[in-house]
């Protein structure tokens, strides 16, 4: 048996009281694609960050090609031939792709046009060798997400990495782009590189990897050859029990139309058309899922429905009444709740306590204030009640919410949005970054809302979540809905194709 190119032994990393990595052993060989599988928060990114020098391990040792390696910084890692493609790209947006790739290179202080031309040629040749295509001379902010990822990969190759780590590489890609990426990984494997990929998607792992290591709650559970396992076993290892997809079927059929959006046209921040001819409908007592790859107008759709963004053309009809202009207050008052994409950025005020955070949307009502003065005592007891009802674990009511765990933050946010008994709930990636238990809790709340007759518009990138919860699934692409299917007829592959913008006819033509 050949020597492993990467060997990690007994790696421990603690963040405060949380042990993110608990005595983890891991090894990977040159010329293989090794998948590190685990749920969000299982610790796979932490372990890989220690291999690439972003974090330093508290205990344990790392061997590269059989030699003990001291990796204290990303620079050390780069020198030792370890390169990592992060989930959030480490690219300077204002610099060109080529500038990003040569960044940090010490050679040649003076960089005239000849030097730049040579570098462009060199980078293009390298990119072509691995089947990666992108414009080298354009600023990164003008590139698509897929192209940016390619820049990242070429960056690691350019710096001579022979151990390449990709952190959740497909989370931002369309199924088609993902296929292309896997082809590139095969080329890298042929070239004798060690390719490590972290992911939580079992299908991809089965399709692309040679060996699989499974992590759960900071511990390494098993390492298996891909050929000798199946999805069911992987799922069991990942979650620790057989996964049972519980779907509460709705009791009653959907009621009358609650929200009708027709031919909506919305311009995004830099004058680009974000929504173009968007039409959809949400009825009372139904969960409508919106599937799509990030950046196809989901953010703008949520913002326009909750009054945060104005629209150019088209109509929004809520409860039979046309909405005249964008107003957050109007949306709140008419009973639209919003669970925004990034809870700490836009959903909660981290420095403030639970009471202030719960009051966000109701402080204007006569229940909570009179003549401009807040009813302090009443608001406190009301908050206490909500915190208990929604099982938010917080040391005190006044503890800044940034000190709560992600799951408890999300519960608090849901407590606020659900307690108002909304007619329509717009939830964007509501389970992002949550563990299984917390995610299940969120799912239950959404189904409860449906059973009380509210409509739910669930915008998510997690196809499993959508398939599990939605009564109808819509696929958003380039700012409009290009496909729809009800729960009974939903087909994973079909939706995947639609997400890439390939419509039925074209798909069958191929």
């Amino acid at each position, binding site marked *: 048996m050949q020597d492993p190119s990467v060997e990690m032994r007994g790696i421990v990393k603690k963040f405060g009281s949380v042990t993110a990595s608990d005595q983890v052993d891991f090894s990977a060989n040159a010329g293989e694609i090794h998948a590190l599988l685990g749920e969000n928060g299982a610790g796979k990114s932490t372990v890989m960050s220690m291999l690439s020098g972003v974090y330093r391990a508290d205990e344990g040792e790392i061997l590269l090609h059989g030699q003990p390696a001291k990796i204290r*910084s990303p620079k050390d890692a780069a020198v030792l031939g370890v390169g990592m493609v992060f989930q959030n790209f480490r690219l300077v947006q204002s610099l060109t792709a080529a500038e990003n790739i040569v*960044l940090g290179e010490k050679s*040649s202080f003076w960089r005239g046009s000849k030097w730049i031309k040579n570098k462009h040629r060199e980078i293009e040749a390298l990119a072509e060798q691995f089947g990666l295509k992108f414009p080298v001379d354009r600023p990164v902010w003008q590139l698509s997400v897929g192209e940016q990822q390619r820049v990242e990969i070429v960056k690691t190759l350019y710096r001579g990495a022979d151990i390449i780590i990709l952190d959740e590489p497909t989370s931002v890609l369309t199924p088609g782009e993902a296929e292309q990426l896997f082809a590139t990984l095969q080329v890298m494997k042929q070239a004798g590189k060690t390719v490590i990929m972290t992911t939580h998607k079992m299908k991809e792992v089965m399709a692309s990897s040679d060996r699989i290591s499974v992590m759960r709650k900071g511990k390494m559970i098993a390492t298996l050859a891909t050929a000798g396992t199946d999805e069911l076993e992987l799922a069991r290892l990942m979650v620790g029990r057989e996964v049972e997809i519980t779907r509460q079927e709705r009791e009653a059929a959907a009621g009358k139309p609650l929200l009708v959006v027709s031919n909506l046209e919305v311009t995004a921040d830099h004058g680009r058309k974000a929504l173009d001819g968007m039409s959809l409908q949400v009825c009372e007592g139904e969960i409508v899922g919106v599937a799509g790859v990030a950046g196809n107008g989901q953010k703008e759709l949520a913002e326009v429905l909750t009054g945060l963004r104005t629209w150019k053309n088209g109509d929004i009809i809520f409860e039979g009444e046309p909405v005249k202009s964008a107003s957050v207050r109007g949306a709140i008052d008419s009973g639209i709740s919003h669970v925004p994409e990034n809870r700490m950025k836009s959903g909660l005020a981290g420095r403030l306590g639970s009471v202030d955070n719960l009051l966000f949307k109701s402080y204007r009502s006569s229940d909570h204030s009179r003549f401009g003065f807040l009813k302090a005592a009443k608001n406190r007891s009301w908050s206490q009640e909500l915190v208990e009802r929604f099982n938010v674990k917080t040391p005190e009511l006044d503890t800044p919410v940034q000190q709560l765990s992600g799951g408890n933050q999300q519960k608090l946010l849901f407590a606020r949005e659900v307690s108002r008994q909304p007619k329509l709930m717009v939830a964007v990636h509501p389970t992002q970054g949550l563990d299984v238990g917390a995610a299940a809790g969120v799912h239950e709340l959404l189904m409860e809302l449906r059973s009380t007759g509210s409509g739910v518009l669930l915008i998510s990138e997690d196809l499993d979540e959508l398939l599990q919860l939605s009564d109808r699934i819509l696929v958003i692409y380039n700012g409009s809905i290009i496909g729809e299917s009800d729960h009974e007829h939903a087909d994973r592959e079909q939706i995947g194709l639609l997400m890439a913008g390939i419509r039925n006819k074209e798909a069958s033509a191929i």
Partner: protein
Amino acid sequence: MDFTTQLLIAAISAGTPLLLATLGGILNERAGIIQLGAEGLMLMGAVTTCIVYIRSENLLLALLAAIAVTAVLGLVHAFLCVTLRANQTMSGLAMTLFGSGLSAYLGKSISGIPLPGTSPKLDLGWVKGIPVVGDIFGRMDSLTWFSLLLVLVLHLLIHRTSWGLHLRAVGDSPATADVMGIRVQLIRYSCITAGTALMGLAGADMVLAYAPTWNEGLTAGRGWIAVGLVIFARWNPLRALFCAYFFGALDSLGFRIQLLGSVVPPYFLKMIPYVVTILVLMYLGYRNRNKPSGTPESLGTPYIREQRF
């Protein structure tokens, strides 16, 4: 000489301190650090120059002293903002307050004493013969020439060298720069120090070329105008040149108009640079409302390497 030529000469003379201070500001902000201490630093540069020049009668020594003093103050700002991650706005305000207080205190003893000389003029005999151009370039002093050279050097440094690439990366995304092995703190420290030294030099130029004695608060808000000019110039040294001279022209326009026998009270003419600064910034804000402004992305936010979330 006609009015326009005179105005151009005056614009360059009044614009040079603004240019130096703006270049200093560009260096700071390109590295992602707000420097609101320009006013105080210019005053400190001016008072140091005056004291040392009067005592030693050595101009070079005086300029070096001004650079040294303001560089040390820059190190204080760097320590607060880079190492301690303090609020950059507040640190800059403290710099301005401290600088104006200390300069007034130190300058009390030399207030009103004329300097032994001014900045030496570079005599370019062959240029002098050319009309207009000769009038302007034939009589510029060495600091003005230096500032012109500096514009070119900084422009090439930022856009044509590896150091400039690193600087731009640090200003836009220090985390990325760090991962790529660039020493973020070192670049920030050096840019802050060099930038504040330039602001000190700007103060020195003000007393040498403009008002050859020390007066309390003689910069009269020019440091703040320079802060605005950094935005006006969109963090670009070449643009800074034109912006600074434009404001230099505005600055001296009031005086020139008065000489022509204008009926407008001089106080209103003196308001022009301040009011125009606001109006120009408003115009830029209006014009750029829908596009990225070119502001270094990390401006004002301290960089912390290992963050959990």
